[in-house]
């Protein structure tokens, strides 16, 4: 019964998320709208963590599992891009490395800057 309640709450939030996106002027993914909505519900205390915790943790801990259909689907659509395999692979690897590095270095640099400013503020009386 407890898990069923948690599932109902989560599915309700997801449905609300997809309803909201229908009223937005730009295409916006329903799952991200539901994520923002759930964060607001938790942040305002309208929803308590323990009301969804076990089911949420089950989904979080097994997240990769839910990508199996999409990943197997690559085999089904293989014909669409088999002539460009090498080019696509090159773009994929290089851009992923660059994106990772650019993000990580930017975050590290800005953290260093903001922490330094915080320290300086702390020192002033």
């Amino acid at each position, binding site marked *: 019964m407890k898990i069923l309640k948690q599932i109902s709450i989560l599915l309700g939030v997801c449905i609300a998320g997809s309803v909201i996106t229908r009223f937005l002027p730009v295409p916006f993914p329903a799952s991200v709208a539901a994520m923002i909505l759930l964060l607001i519900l938790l942040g305002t205390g309208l929803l308590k963590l323990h009301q969804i915790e076990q089911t949420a943790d089950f989904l979080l801990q097994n997240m990769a599992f839910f990508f199996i259909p999409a990943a197997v689907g690559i085999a089904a659509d293989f014909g669409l891009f088999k002539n460009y395999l090498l080019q696509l692979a090159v773009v994929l690897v290089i851009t992923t490395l660059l994106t990772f590095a*650019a993000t990580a270095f930017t975050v590290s640099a800005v953290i260093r800057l903001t922490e330094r400013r915080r320290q300086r503020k702390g020192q002033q009386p």
Partner: protein
Amino acid sequence: MISEILTSPLGAIFLSAVCFVLGSWLQRKVRSPLLNPLLVAVALIILVLQLTGVPPQAFTDATQVIAMLLGPATAVLAVSIYRQIQVLKRHFLPVVLGCLAGVLTSVGSAYLLCSLLGLDRALTASMLPKSVTTAISMELSRQQGGIVAVTVAVTVCTGILGAVLAPLLVRLLRIRHPVAAGVAIGASSHAIGTSKALELGEVEGAMSGVAIGVSGLLTVLIFLFL
């Protein structure tokens, strides 16, 4: 008989679960980042489908229940963000600027490399949004005249690549701050990368989840100007 079982929802979910459990078990035994559970599970499933002569399309049709749970699984990233809300408040600016740098690098470098390698407009449009979560990348690809199936494939490949490379890159690039590692994983390889980030640590997982949302939003905004 076997093909009938594998294309029924029960049989397809059974095969997926068994292969994923095997993949997770193998990773714990061998401890190599290359043996990503998703990668192993998909390889095993495709092998089984090849041996039994079941078309992949028939199998994926039977696993729609699993694919449907991707929405709730993305939504509950809010729970991991909520648990780390203090970390997010403290590092709000670095997270947002990091995601912005990631999105610009991802879209920009993909565009440059695709033109350099002579890929046509439809394929290029299919590649541009590949670093953000599948739900967003599909929508953006369609808007830009890309091929949605190609976008789904390259988005999933990007995610798996990110999940496999993340632990290596964190060490290689000497990323010491868990917030920087988490945001970089989420911005470069969305939810599949995040499943790896969740294994690295609570902070990494939560920040990676935040990065999916923020990079997704920023990418949607940037595509308005393309």
